[in-house]
């Protein structure tokens, strides 16, 4: 560079030079920089080409008859067919609740930003598509296996309801926006009522991938508050509370989840008087909640430890009560700092819901196994078809969750302020 004719200021303001790397140079740099890299590239390239070839050959030859026949079994298990309308109704309620709640959250943030005199950056629909396209793709993929047009139409209705709820959310009164948790409670009640009320289907018959989702959502919403309390208990200044919390956490973290499920399935009945028994679904949900809360407690504890002591002292010096110090100062920072670990824990809960099939709940994995034992599909090696199919659902769910966590982390500026 000719430094004598350009002043430093000019050099700074000059736009950076974009030079497109020619493919040859790029390959030389990234694939063939020295002899062993070249060997690696050739070997790995051959291996990858072979895998792709095998995969394409497999995908062309694969017979998806088993999926088409059993799609309802996979998604809803043995939900009574004459009651399927209730399941769709529940899906509609859930869609509407999520859309309504999303709008409330957006408007709440907008209101707070206006009050504080800050700019509010509104995300447009392309952003939503970019974030959730894997789920949309998975739904389309699922619909491609249906035998009639009805499920597709019903899904379109769900999409319409979601959009309508989002639009209606624009007219939400201010008091509801400030108490958006009311929407969730109403949605939950509605969801349960649509499924169960007036001779509906109790949760003993909630099966298939539906039950995986229900257990994940319910498990997260129940285990999170419990874990939070345990974490606070572990950091408590009261020795007795601390010892109880530590014992609980370390005990549950030391055993595999399947032992908890065995406990839920076979031993919990012994702990409750004979005339008051509850269903397998509920017992397993209790077991999963107890188990996951111990892990969530450890994640929260990590967050609590990451909040500098000065924050607590500052809160005390402005006269906040211990409860307000925790709720307004410590917890928001603590939880923000552990978003990736927390979501990682949620993902692990989602994956662990498959374990319920070992103790007899018919979840997606169990449904897949049942289908390969049917006479017309028995012993044809169809596990190689249906297990990857089931894996796709868990993969997409986990993938979207972990990407959302990274987005949230970035948005909240963890590590940058």
């Amino acid at each position: 560079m000719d430094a004598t004719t350009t002043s430093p200021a000019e050099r700074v303001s000059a736009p950076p030079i974009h030079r497109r790397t020619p493919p040859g140079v790029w390959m030389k740099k990234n694939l063939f920089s020295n002899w062993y890299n070249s060997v690696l590239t050739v070997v790995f390239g051959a291996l990858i080409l072979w895998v792709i070839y095998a995969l394409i050959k497999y995908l062309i030859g694969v017979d998806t008859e088993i999926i088409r026949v059993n799609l309802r079994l996979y998604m809803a298990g043995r939900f009574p067919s004459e009651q399927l309308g209730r399941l769709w109704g529940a899906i509609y309620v859930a869609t509407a609740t999520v859309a309504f709640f999303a709008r409330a959250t957006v408007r709440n943030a907008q209101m707070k930003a206006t009050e504080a005199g800050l700019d509010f950056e509104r995300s447009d629909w392309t952003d939503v598509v970019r974030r959730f396209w894997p789920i949309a793709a998975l739904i389309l993929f699922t619909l491609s296996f249906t035998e009639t047009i009805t499920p597709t139409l019903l899904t379109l209705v769900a999409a319409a309801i979601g959009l309508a709820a989002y639009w209606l959310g624009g007219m939400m009164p201010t008091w509801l926006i400030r108490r958006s948790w009311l929407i969730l409670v109403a949605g939950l009640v509605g969801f349960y009522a649509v499924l169960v009320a007036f001779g509906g289907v109790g949760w003993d018959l909630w099966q298939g991938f539906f039950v995986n989702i229900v257990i994940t959502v319910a498990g997260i919403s129940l285990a999170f508050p419990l874990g939070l309390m345990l974490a606070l208990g572990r950091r408590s200044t009261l020795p007795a509370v601390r010892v109880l919390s530590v014992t609980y956490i370390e005990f549950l973290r030391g055993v595999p989840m399947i032992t908890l499920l065995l406990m839920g399935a076979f031993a919990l009945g012994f702990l409750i008087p004979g005339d008051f028994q509850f269903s397998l679904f509920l017992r397993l949900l209790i077991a999963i909640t107890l188990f996951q809360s111990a892990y969530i407690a450890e994640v929260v504890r990590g967050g609590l430890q990451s909040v500098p002591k000065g924050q607590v002292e500052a809160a005390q010096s402005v006269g906040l009560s211990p409860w307000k110090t925790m709720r307004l100062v410590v917890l928001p920072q603590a939880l923000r700092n552990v978003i990736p670990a927390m979501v990682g824990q949620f993902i692990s809960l989602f994956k662990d819901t498959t374990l319920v099939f070992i103790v007899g709940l018919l979840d997606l994995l169990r449904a897949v196994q049942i289908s390969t034992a049917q006479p017309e599909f028995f012993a044809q090696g169809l596990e190689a078809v249906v297990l990857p199919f089931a894996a796709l659902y868990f993969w997409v769910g986990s993938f979207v969750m972990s990407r959302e966590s990274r987005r949230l982390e970035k948005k909240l500026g963890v590590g940058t302020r």
Partner: protein
Amino acid sequence: MTATDTSKVKRPPFWRNIRVIRVALQILAVVVVVGAFLYLGNNLRNELIAKNLPTDFSFLSQPTGVTIADSDFDPASPVWRALVAGIKNTFLLVIVGIPFLTILGTLIGVARLSTNWLVAKAAMVYVETLRNIPPLLIILFVFNAVILQLPPPRDPATPLDWFVISNLKITGPWVVASAGAGALLIIAVIALAAAAIVAVWRTRYSEQTGQHSHRALWGLGVFAVIVIIGYFITGRPVAISFPVLDGRVITGGFGGLGAYFAVLIALVMYTASHVAEIVRGSIQAVPKGQTEAANAIALSGFQRLRYVILPQAFRIALPPIINQYLNFAKNTSLAIAIGYAEITLITFQTIGNGYPAPQLILLLMGAYLIFSLTISLFVNILNRRLQLVGN
């Protein structure tokens, strides 16, 4: 204000005294927990008696009725023997799995940081795929879609005549010892000691003269020479036994059930994806200045990794990796889904044979708990040792 009469200072009522509140809260917590335990314990007792089940652990000496595939376990043996056999099988998974998952995980973790674009992307795809799939599903897939697709036991594959592979069992060559093997073992121990001494001597030599120590080479050489001489002196007590197929019976060699290999392969692949992320994170956590300093003193790429980066990354990675070992050990309980007779499946079957579930599950949890807490203790000690001095 002058001296106040302290006796006239109005003390807050006792229910607002922080000391009283603290004690009261703790007593309340303990009472609630103990009360809940007593209540549940009482229920448990009543229910067990109502169902005609024992309320203690005396059933452990009664016959189990559990059969364990591919072993000479007698179903008439007492329950505790079956549980011990299950623990043994669990350990067989853990001990074989840990070295493999460490090596695979480290390789993939390093590969993710490779300057070779293709290698880095392939490693990324591996990690992102396996990490987001339930381990149970991977086990079922490996078992059903790989192991069970092997040839049936009546017509197994025999590659190189070294292995006998069927979907029931996989057998490979193994060493068998005859008389005199004990003597050879003693010689091997002596050889190990000699090798250690030689290695120490070479290290000193290197420190004094500045020459290359080649201590690994020297140690290995000394060990090999002594053991080979000993092998012939003791009359060749150790031989390699190849599995021989005779009808459907396999004699010789050493093998494991297909289910064993399915769990092993699936969990090693799954856990390796987590270990890879830890390895990558730890290497990236080593300050960049270290790499630059290593380059500045002209270390080669290998030397930079071996002497500068990896020792520091190791210290960061060790606690989370041991955590993954624990997860691996706990995940072996998923073998129950494909019927490999580890401790969880044995417990499950024993419950099915009419023995009381609460006690058996408590024992099962206790076994895992002892194992986990021992490892945790070890990690804590290690953590303290690995802390940088002055940190």
